[in-house]
């Protein structure tokens, strides 16, 4: 690792000011949970000259959880255990509680989860150049890409690693930011269009800090992760669903897929097909969820994900539909 300076400001605006690249520090980086930063530094993927530690900022709103808002610094464990969210948006606790390990969830934050870097093993190894670095080629395309995309909507074949981003997307979430000239960004706009920009982690400038996320309530919302390993694994595919119900009938649905595209992948064709369907009508729900792979263009090594995706979405829809009372969990 290269030497770096370290500072722990007491308020968010100081942190944002420090995070602006300047003559003293060309590569400042913000750190909260810091779960991944050290690994990236050790691998030489990042060489910050200033680390701005956000954990000493004295602002309780950064950690608070309310039925419609989560502080950016709240840990995944706090989200997973929140009673308020279990009622208003069970999809959040389920997806946060499925990430990584209990140890990591105790430290990793919501903002960090939204802004984490891809797990693409080519990108993670310093000896490989790739489109996300300075290269002209993607080594995963002809390489071992078993964990990569099935929707090739950009030249980079990485999948987005966040468990929470798709959940917030189906909840029409937005992030609160300080340090720039805007205070809110919709989750759907947080990540760049992979066809246009395949190198940026998000649209945020270096000095913008996520202080919280806001979202609509969705008592009938659920998350399903299909993992190879049940302890500490990234999903092969994940499914997200938030339903509006009138009795047993789905009046509107929002579904989203994780781990299949460079950013969370909404499935409007599934949503349209689910509208008006009874939650007991297994045949129509199946047919609707099969549409999840419309437009999929899998790689030779990711064909299996096209089998998994409709299953994940259907199970998420069924789990969301079965949440009639706040007492029932969302994760199958």
């Amino acid at each position, binding site marked *: *690792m290269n030497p770096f300076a370290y500072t722990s400001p007491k308020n968010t605006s100081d942190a944002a000011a420090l995070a602006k690249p300047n003559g003293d520090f060309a590569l400042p980086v913000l750190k909260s949970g810091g779960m991944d930063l050290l690994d990236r530094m050790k691998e030489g993927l990042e060489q910050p000259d200033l680390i701005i530690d956000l954990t000493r900022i004295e602002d309780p709103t950064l950690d608070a959880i309310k039925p419609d808002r989560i502080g950016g610094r709240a840990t995944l464990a706090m989200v997973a255990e929140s009673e308020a969210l279990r009622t208003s948006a069970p999809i959040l606790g389920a997806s946060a509680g499925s990430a990584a390990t209990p140890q990591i969830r105790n430290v990793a934050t919501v903002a960090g989860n939204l802004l984490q870097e891809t797990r693409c093993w080519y990108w993670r190894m310093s000896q*490989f150049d790739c489109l996300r670095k300075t290269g002209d080629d993607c080594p995963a395309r*002809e390489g071992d890409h078993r964990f990569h995309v099935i929707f090739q909507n950009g030249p980079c074949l990485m999948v987005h690693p966040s468990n929470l981003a798709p959940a917030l997307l189906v909840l029409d979430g937005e992030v609160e930011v300080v340090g720039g000239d805007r205070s809110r960004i919709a989750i759907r706009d947080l990540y760049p269009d992979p066809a246009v920009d395949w190198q940026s982690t998000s649209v945020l400038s270096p000095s913008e800090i996520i202080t919280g996320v806001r979202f609509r309530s969705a008592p009938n919302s659920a998350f399903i992760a*299909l993992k*190879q*390993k049940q302890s500490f694994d990234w999903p092969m595919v994940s499914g997200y669903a938030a339903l509006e119900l009138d009795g047993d009938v789905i009046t509107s649905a929002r579904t989203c897929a994780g781990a299949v595209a460079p950013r969370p992948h909404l499935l409007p064709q599934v949503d349209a097909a689910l509208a008006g369907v009874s939650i007991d009508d297994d045949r129509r729900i199946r047919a609707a969820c099969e549409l999840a792979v419309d437009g999929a263009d899998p790689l030779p090594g990711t064909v299996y994900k096209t*089998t998994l995706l409709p*299953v994940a979405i259907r199970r998420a829809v069924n789990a969301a539909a079965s949440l009639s009372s706040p007492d029932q969990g969302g994760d199958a």
Partner: protein
Amino acid sequence: MTHQPRDLRAINSGQSVADHASRLDGLAKATGAARFGRDQIKKDMLWVRLIRCPWGRAKLDSLDRDAALATPGVVEVVVSGDDGDYHGDSIGYLVARNRRGLERGLRALNAKWTRLDCQTGILDDEQARGPMDAPSEAAAKAIDAADFSFEARYSTPVQTHSSLETHGLMIEPDGENSIVHASTQGTFVVADQIGRFLGKRRSKIVVDCEYVGGGFGSKFQIGKEGAAGGLAAKSSGEAVYSFCDREEEHLDTGNRPSLLCKVNVGHDADGTIRGARFETFGGTGVSRRGGGARVPSGRFEFGTLDARNHRDVQFNAGGPRAMRAPGCPQGAFVEELLIDEIAHRCGLDPLGLRRRLDDSDRRQRMYDVAADLIGWENRVDTGSQSGTMRTGYGIGTCDWGKGRAPAKIEVVVHPDGHLEVRTGTQDIGTGQRTAMGALVAARIGVPLANISVAIGDSRLPPGPASGGSVCTPSTAPAAMAAADLARERILAGVAEREKLDATKLTIDDGVIMEGGRKVVRWEDACRRLSEPVSVTGEFDGRASAYWGEGSSEGVQAARVEVDCETGQVFVREVIAIQSCGLPLVRKTAESQIMGGVIQGASYALFEEQVLDPATGAVLNANLESYKILGSEDCPRIIPVLWRDDQTGVRALGEPPVVPTAAAIANAVFNAIGRPVRDLPLRPDRVLAALAEPMAERVVAVAPRTTEPENRA
């Protein structure tokens, strides 16, 4: 999660020498008080790191030695070559005063490599890819004479050792001597090997490995990291620390090699196997040998065999080293799945077919118990289930030889009644320390609390390396002999003082008795000693009155659930029956069995080294994407020690890892009706199998299709 259900403990109670003894080092390990080799970090010492090739094959173009040497803290840069033949291959090493200097020095060295074309697996070999050769004349005749025949090919991946304590050593000068704190499976192996690099006589080298964090066969040699550490210690005369980091541990410390096995087998309608040809290809990376697999194992009757057709295939990856039962889990996977496939073709219960093909009396009885405990009666015919979640049952077996090696154990009786058991042999986590202490305590008749064990130090009496599962079988006769000598010495003194017949005296829980009469407490008898009594028991590695009778055999039964929409396999339960002669300590013996099952289940479902096909770089040299079974993936494991009144201590370290993957693969076959012939049993492979037609039946039978009772 693993539960050792208390109600099932009764299975093993009374089976071992010490049923209730707990690990003597449990507290030290749990609290961190135990100092492993990797913990030996001193303020003033040098750090060593190898300079490694980042690609499968590459040529070094340039490096900036001057810049590296100009880096603060860097002491020495040694470069001895410019060819890299695999990712992790080393061309030299760098020595620095501290870790920071090491890291910055390596960066300043700025090694530039030109990547070259490389080969990355067995299937890069034309013969391996191609069709099978014709069987030998005799085997061909037998196969042709059989009612049916078929060909199949099976494969297993590279499994890396992933030792929790990485490979390496720390060397510190001590006057004329060098003390070597090593993470090793062979205290005395290190003492013999490191001298060449240190330039020291064997008598000036002390090896300390009191605590070792794992070793499944890859820690019999000091490795390149150890050699570099030795050279740096010699040239500097200072303390030197040379341990692999996590990535290096995956790249260059050996592995269980991959296997491709092609089989041509002829069988009759009743399941009798008339003849078979096995062709095996071992993936040995840059090594020329070490890829062999034990298939068939000899446990089952295969008729006229044409086996021993093995070739090791070289490619650009790190080479293998012994790994817990080398060649056996991969061989068992092939052989046991093949037997289940034959059973299915003939419409037979695979357990019934095994009973006919297996002539071990002990395993015949184990089959009964395994079937009973796993609930075999709930098994339905292979391929007869529908629905999303399907349950499967499978069986695997093992056996092991009676290897042994010379060993000495010293027992010192102190005048306060305290006993010291002294053995230079290492405890790599198996419970060797506890086994020796508990054996001596039980043999003499004193509580374990009276015993301490000094272990893992080359100044102590010599013993074998931990390999081939010979360590406990070899040290136990020596420990029994030493315990008996110590006991006799103390009893002789008591008899003389009390004018009793020493042969009539016994010791029960620290009290010396004559018949039912208490004579004197052990401590009081020892108090009469003017100085400590030292006795040494010796086993010559061949014969001994203490060797006794016994064998290592095992049967495991697995119950799995397969999610047929996602291809996920969940191992719910494994019954692991294992004989090991006379078990010494129930808890550590059970732990060995459970560890074998966990490692075997991990091998069955998750573990595989992934090489980039174009560059040969290892894509998963870390514990994130090199997937190892975690707590949520762990089945309920019921370890069953099988005593059968055996008297001799036998192998236990390796055999329990042999049947697990085979049993799980068979259970998956039973659940989904198609064999998955490639490990690991990944979801994509299970889904691909499910897309294939149901496995062929060549003998018509009425299937049993009752849905199984849900026992989850």
